[in-house]
């Protein structure tokens, strides 16, 4: 147990450098901070905590086995992730900084505009983080397939967190290699005079966009799927129910969201010059993801129905879960608006997009992480935290994120 415990704790403790500095500086500093903020939050906060931390701790527990299938691979995953974090920090601190945004579009990220260390370090860092994720995901997939109780496809057996981590692992194993390919092409362009992204040599910057977003869209579902599982667990405990309402539907919805996430990457590229029928397809496909997501929200509402809630007696993690359902729904609805190619002429690259993804991430994934943390805190440590302090944590965060991100819709 202690091996698993140590591994998962080290994952959970990677909540570092989560927010950019407060002082404004002109020049590349702002862009560098913004890029680092995105990389840190996505790759070193949400992913290690929800996938590495929760996965390592709970997959063995919930399938009632002793440890994951491949503990040494797990260990490799940890060290790769640590190394990746180190490289990313080096990238931030080296001359010039990472001024290209977390999406690293060439030609800006190519050698003629951002020469030298920072981008190369970031590319290697992402390669390592990718390998770490793939290793961990293979581990999860093998474990879940081999050591399940009963048949995998007898859906009513498995807890929701297992299902969502299963979906997350599939997404990781399939989409990270595409990112690795794009990154390798970028590295070749920068140092070996290739022209994958240079039009003068027959390449196309749009190639990077396709490769990156083919990874990038499943990536954001990777960030949110474990959160879905956590919320299901918290809510069914808060309502004193055996499992979440309609759990077969929930499992199908999670898998549906995971699968459909592969089909919609073009909605990040609506103004880049895609063909109009292509834009129409991506609009339709993106809108369709709203259906299973809505099913999940309604199922959660039905889970809440019939439970006894009160300010005084409810466990604090309930607040996080209810906050999640409401705020993630708002974020999802702004996502429905952004899905339309016809509106991207107004909304592309604007603060509306920033508002959308912060609602689903800072108020989706992060609420689930905090809620899960307080939910399982007595389980992990044997200590019970002071309820009023935990509630204060919730109230301050809730007020803070709403005041920060709601005005961005204008």
């Amino acid at each position: 147990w202690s091996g698993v415990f140590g591994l998962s704790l080290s994952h959970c403790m990677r909540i570092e450098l989560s927010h950019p500095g407060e002082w404004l500086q002109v020049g590349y500093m702002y862009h560098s901070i913004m890029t680092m903020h995105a990389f840190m939050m996505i790759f070193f906060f949400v992913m290690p905590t929800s996938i590495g931390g929760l996965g390592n701790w709970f997959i063995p527990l919930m399938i009632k086995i002793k440890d994951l299938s491949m503990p040494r691979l797990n260990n490799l995953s940890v060290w790769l992730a640590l190394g990746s974090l180190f490289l990313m920090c080096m990238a931030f601190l080296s001359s010039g900084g990472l001024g290209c945004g977390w999406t690293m579009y060439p030609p800006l990220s190519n050698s003629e505009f951002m020469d030298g260390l920072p981008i190369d370090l970031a590319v290697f860092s992402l390669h390592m983080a990718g390998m770490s994720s793939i290793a961990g995901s293979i581990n999860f997939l093998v474990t879940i397939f081999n050591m399940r109780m009963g048949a995998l496809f007898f859906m009513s057996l498995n807890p929701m967190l297992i299902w969502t981590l299963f979906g997350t692992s599939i997404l990781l194993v399939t989409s990270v290699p595409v990112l690795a390919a794009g990154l390798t092409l970028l590295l070749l362009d920068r140092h070996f005079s290739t022209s994958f992204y240079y039009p003068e040599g027959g390449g196309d910057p749009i190639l990077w966009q396709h490769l990156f977003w083919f990874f990038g869209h499943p990536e954001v579902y990777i960030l949110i799927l474990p959160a879905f599982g956590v919320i299901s667990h918290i809510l069914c405990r808060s309502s004193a129910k055996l499992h979440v309402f309609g759990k077969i539907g929930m499992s199908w919805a999670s898998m549906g969201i995971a699968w459909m996430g592969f089909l919609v990457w073009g909605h990040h590229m609506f103004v880049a010059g895609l063909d109009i029928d292509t834009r129409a397809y991506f609009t339709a496909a993106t809108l369709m993801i709203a259906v299973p997501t809505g099913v999940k929200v309604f199922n959660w509402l039905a889970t809440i129905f019939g439970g006894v809630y009160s300010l005084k007696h409810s466990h604090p993690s309930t607040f996080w879960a209810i906050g999640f359902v409401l705020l993630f729904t708002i974020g999802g609805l702004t996502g429905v608006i952004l899905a339309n190619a016809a509106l991207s002429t107004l909304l592309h690259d604007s603060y509306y997009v920033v508002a959308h993804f912060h609602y689903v991430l800072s108020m989706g994934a992060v609420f689930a992480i905090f809620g899960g943390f307080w939910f399982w805190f007595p389980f992990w440590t044997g200590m019970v935290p002071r309820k009023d302090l935990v509630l204060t944590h919730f109230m301050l965060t809730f007020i803070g994120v709403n005041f920060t991100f709601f005005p961005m819709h204008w």
Partner: protein
Amino acid sequence: MSQWGGTYYQMTFTSASSMSKLLYESIMNINCFVMTIVVCSMTMAIWSGMLVGHCRKWLKYELLEAIWTAVPALLIWWISSMSFFVLYTNAEHKEPTYFYSVITGHQWYWTYQYALVNEKKEFFGFEHDSYGLLLDEPSSSDDETVLSKGDMYLMDVDLPFVIPQGMPGELLVASDDVIHSWSVPALGITVDAVPGRLNRSPILAKTVGVAYGHCRELCGVNHHAMPIVVEIVTPKTYMKFMEQDS
């Protein structure tokens, strides 16, 4: 979609932007409807325990699940129909194009090339650069590159882009170095300027006026400082403008 300090949409100069605005309002309507349902259901769900007591056995109800799958699917179908209509209508003019403009993005300014066809069926036109006004001391009394009283910082330019009102045109957007994005929300146009590629957007401004916009793709240090100003003038003024520099 609002300008700095505003809370409502910008004025819409083209049918593209007014139709996009209508589409946004329609979807927002549906969204608010859905959100109201969610908030009311949440309230009911939370208070139900106190009124009805525990309901621990209620764990599935297939008919209800079917309803809340089918109804959102219908709403999504409705949204996508409206969306397709707006998308395809905004994509092309019905009338033949009267004027062309090539907009080139550089780090960190825009170049506008104007082209018209004269009676001899030849293209004529000229080009000029458009820089954002600098926050500097003017070097002389008529220094045009520096902010003067009444100008808006990071929004005004030295030479705006001029288009005629009521005449259909086509904007061809290209880039000299990195990816930029020419975006003027009041005209309902955002087109990425990708090197090695010529992206196009039809434009038909219905009223005269001035529209502001910004670069909308991170392009380096001064990405925030390459604004766009579009002056929509009467066709007569446009002809005089075009003849000045041939």
